[in-house]
């Protein structure tokens, strides 16, 4: 009954400070379970979701990094960030918790065009 529409989820929110990051992952996993191809783009503050060595015990919150690590098990492997964003926060791929595909900022438009539907969190 469900078409295999591809979805791009754009993540622009930092983890922990708001519930957006978790809500986004919940939608991503659900769509993937329904066999819709899911791509994730992390831009702006959303890039902070990917920083490694997160340790939110004192906040009594779930480790966002760990939830991201589960993505491959749900066949979500198209994970994009832009080189410009990574550079702008002064970090490198070594600082990230999961493997990502680096793209140029002006490739965002084609990422949007390649997918059937776009959600932003």
């Amino acid at each position, binding site marked *: *009954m*469900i*078409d*295999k*529409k591809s*979805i791009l989820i754009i993540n*622009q*929110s930092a983890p922990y400070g708001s*519930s*957006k990051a978790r*809500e986004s992952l*919940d*939608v991503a996993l*659900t*769509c993937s*379970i*329904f066999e*819709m191809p899911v791509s994730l783009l992390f831009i702006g503050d959303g890039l902070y979701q990917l920083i490694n060595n997160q340790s939110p015990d004192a906040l009594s919150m779930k480790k966002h990094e760990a939830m991201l690590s589960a993505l491959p098990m749900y066949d979500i492997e198209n994970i994009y960030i832009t080189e410009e964003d990574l550079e702008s926060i002064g970090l490198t791929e070594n600082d990230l918790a999961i493997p990502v595909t680096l793209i140029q900022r002006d490739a965002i438009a084609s990422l949007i065009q390649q997918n059937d*539907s776009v*959600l*932003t*969190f």
Partner: protein
Amino acid sequence: MKFSLIVHASPFSAQTSSTAYRYAKCLLEEGHQIFRIFYYGDGVLVANQQIAPPQDETNLLSSWQSLAKTHNLDLVVCIAAAVKRGVLDDNEAQRYDKENANLALGFELSGLGQLAEAIAVSDRVITFGN
């Protein structure tokens, strides 16, 4: 065209839920079809029948309800988001041992699969809030 809407923001502290309502109303007036409205995050709070807006303010809950009644709309409230925010139907009230259900008439609790389906079958999906 067949539309679905996602409503995210708190109806009490952001304009967004009200923008979504105006947009939905206009869609229908223009002859389009709404497959589903999916309430997520703090957006689910509009479906609490306990809400008592001041008389000089718009009652967004009853606005949605009457639009839904006239046009037979499918108003789906994310069950996980609703339960943690204290918006419960009979089943959930029983499951969590709460005294009363408070989900407003015209709304239905269901899972994120309903959002996935809405994306799959609609020509356009518009998110209000993020």
